[in-house]
């Protein structure tokens, strides 16, 4: 082989390598694009809800309250008759079946929405107002174009009569798209139009908070001790191997552990953020210790020697010099550990967070949902409305993860100091 040939071969192999690299990046980006596109196209419609504009008449004869009733009296009162009257007036129905079909176009919470409107505006007795009442899930999906209307009637959830009413409402401009506040403020519900991630958000927040409070101090102190103070011998080697192994243990194993110890033995309340937080902390602990030790190890020994040489004690050299330098890496490691914990599903299913919880938890010891488990629950539900809700919840979860990772990168770049 001549020199020219060899040179050409070297250049060619470099070109090939560049091409493989570019191709890999392209394939990876393609997968991300498909995933994001799929989630966005399904999920973005969940942030809007369909409402029907109706005229509500607060008929003094049907209402059990009058102007000047106290809030408690209004809360206790029955708005059912007014609600039914309002709905029936919105479209002429000929018989009881048609009336029921008409009523089914509205959410089951129509009565509560009317009551809330009454509470918000004073002195409505005997008055008429226009109100936007949330539509039922079927109408919501139909209006968003997710529901096929060309199926035969017996295979549709929406009858021909209901379709006629819907078309009529559309023609009269009575169907409106509003921001879906229920998605953020409500807990879970059997009715997709009322279901929200409020409970899951608060539950996840409490869980991660407890996870942070438990795992961060323990992980940081353990890392500092192991890295700076512990003698290097067989026992510490054994501990190190164990920590590395624990980080690789499947998360469901931590769920089983929590089930046995926290729920069965200690009898903490099940389905609660408290138990979730403790379980996630156990799981996150080794995942924080590893980056934390790595960032301590990355501080050059010359800094420690410099401090010791001016007469700092071991403790002072560690806490005045090494730890501050390792802090950015420690913090970003912690945040990434927490981000993993936020998306963890399996252990939470085992400790009972998969239960159907409607209420938003007030404290960490109330039963609660959490974001990833909510995704799991809704993805199993049959109603069409939950498909978009599932994707929208994934979008929320992903945006939290992206924000957390961004903060981690920012912290590292902002506070990382350069040495020699």
């Amino acid at each position, binding site marked *: 082989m001549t020199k020219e040939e060899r040179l050409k071969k070297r250049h060619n192999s470099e070109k090939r390598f560049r091409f493989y690299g570019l191709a890999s990046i392209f394939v990876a980006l393609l997968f991300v694009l498909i995933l994001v596109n799929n989630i966005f196209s399904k999920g973005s419609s969940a942030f809007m809800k369909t409402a029907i504009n109706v005229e509500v008449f607060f008929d003094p004869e049907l209402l059990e309250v009058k102007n000047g009733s106290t809030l408690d009296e209004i809360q206790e009162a029955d708005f059912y008759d007014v609600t039914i009257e309002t709905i029936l007036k919105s479209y002429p129905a000929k018989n009881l079946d048609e009336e029921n079909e008409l009523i089914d176009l509205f959410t089951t919470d129509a009565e509560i929405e009317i009551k809330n409107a009454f509470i918000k505006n004073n002195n409505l007795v005997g008055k008429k107002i226009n109100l936007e009442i949330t539509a039922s899930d079927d109408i919501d999906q139909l209006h968003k174009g997710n529901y096929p209307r060309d199926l035969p009637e017996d295979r549709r959830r929406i009858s021909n009569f209901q379709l006629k009413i819907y078309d009529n409402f559309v023609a009269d401009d009575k169907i409106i798209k509003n921001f879906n506040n229920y998605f953020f403020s409500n807990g879970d519900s059997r009715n997709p139009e009322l279901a929200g991630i409020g409970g899951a958000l608060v539950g996840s927040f409490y869980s991660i908070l407890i996870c942070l409070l438990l795992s961060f101090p323990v992980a940081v102190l353990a890392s500092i001790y192991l890295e700076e103070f512990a*003698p*290097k011998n067989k026992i510490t080697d054994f501990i190190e191997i164990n920590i590395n192994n624990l980080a690789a243990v499947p998360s469901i194993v931590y769920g089983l552990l929590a089930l046995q110890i926290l729920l069965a033995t200690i009898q903490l309340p099940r389905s609660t953020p408290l138990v979730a937080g403790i379980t996630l902390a156990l799981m996150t602990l080794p995942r924080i210790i590893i980056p934390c030790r790595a960032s301590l190890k990355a501080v*050059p020994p*010359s*800094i*420690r*020697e*410099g*401090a*010791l*040489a*001016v*007469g*700092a*004690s071991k403790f*002072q050299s560690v806490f*005045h*010099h090494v730890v501050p*330098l390792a802090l950015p890496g420690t913090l970003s490691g912690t945040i990434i550990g927490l981000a993993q914990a936020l998306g963890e599903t399996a252990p939470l299913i085992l400790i009972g967070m998969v239960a159907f919880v409607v209420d938003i938890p007030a404290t960490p010891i109330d039963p609660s949902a959490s974001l990833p488990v909510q995704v799991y629950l809704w993805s199993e539900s049959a109603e069409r409305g939950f498909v978009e809700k599932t994707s929208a919840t994934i979008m929320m979860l992903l945006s939290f993860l992206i924000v957390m990772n961004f903060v981690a990168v920012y912290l590292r770049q902002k506070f990382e*100091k*350069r*040495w*020699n």
Partner: protein
Amino acid sequence: MSDIKIKSKNLNVYYGDKQALFDVNLDLNEKEVTALIGPSGCGKSTFIRCINRMNDVIDICKVEGNIEIDGIEINDKELDVVSLRERVGMVFQKPNPFPKSIYDNISYGPKIHGKGETKNELDEIVERSLKKAALWEEVKDRLDEPGTGLSGGQQQRLCIARAISVNPEVILMDEPCSALDPIATAKIEELIDELKKTYTIVIVTHSMAQAVRVSQKTGFFHLGKLIEVGLTEKIFKNPDNKMTQDYITGRFG
């Protein structure tokens, strides 16, 4: 002849199974510069790290024998290394300023030893130390800038200033100029000349010329043994030992 400041007797040092120093007996005079020369790995650095017990940091290192400073044994488990290192400062081969401001680099030592209670006292110590290290004029207007932003020679002088900020009696220098250019080296050497009026200085160096320029006394180490020690002039002009002769004339090392 000056008084003896540091006295080592039968000093043996082991790193695990490997013995690094063999029965070193060496006296260092007060307010003098003693240079330690010898090929790499001969134990010079190990020896000076015994004087401020920096070898304690290394788990596998074991030190046997005696070192006395002013007649007091320092190789004693009961002795507080913090107060020892306050008396025996050290400057390392590679400048290692803390990644903090110039001011904080100097004021850290006095602060942890409770010297300089007030801001004024600290300011004074910082100024005095930087002046002694011949760095004051160059940095007085940017004391709050990071010490790591200085040039290599300035960083090393900053480290010297840091060492003298706690007002030690002895300064150990472990090849302080090996990472510096000739101009910066000349400045450090000038500085050493000045500092020896106040401090006892031990300097490890690979440069024979440097040993001649700065030291009054020179010790030659080889394979962990102190081969010869004496007045610098004598060692370099008329050594007793054949090995010393070979080393200084560049036949090995």
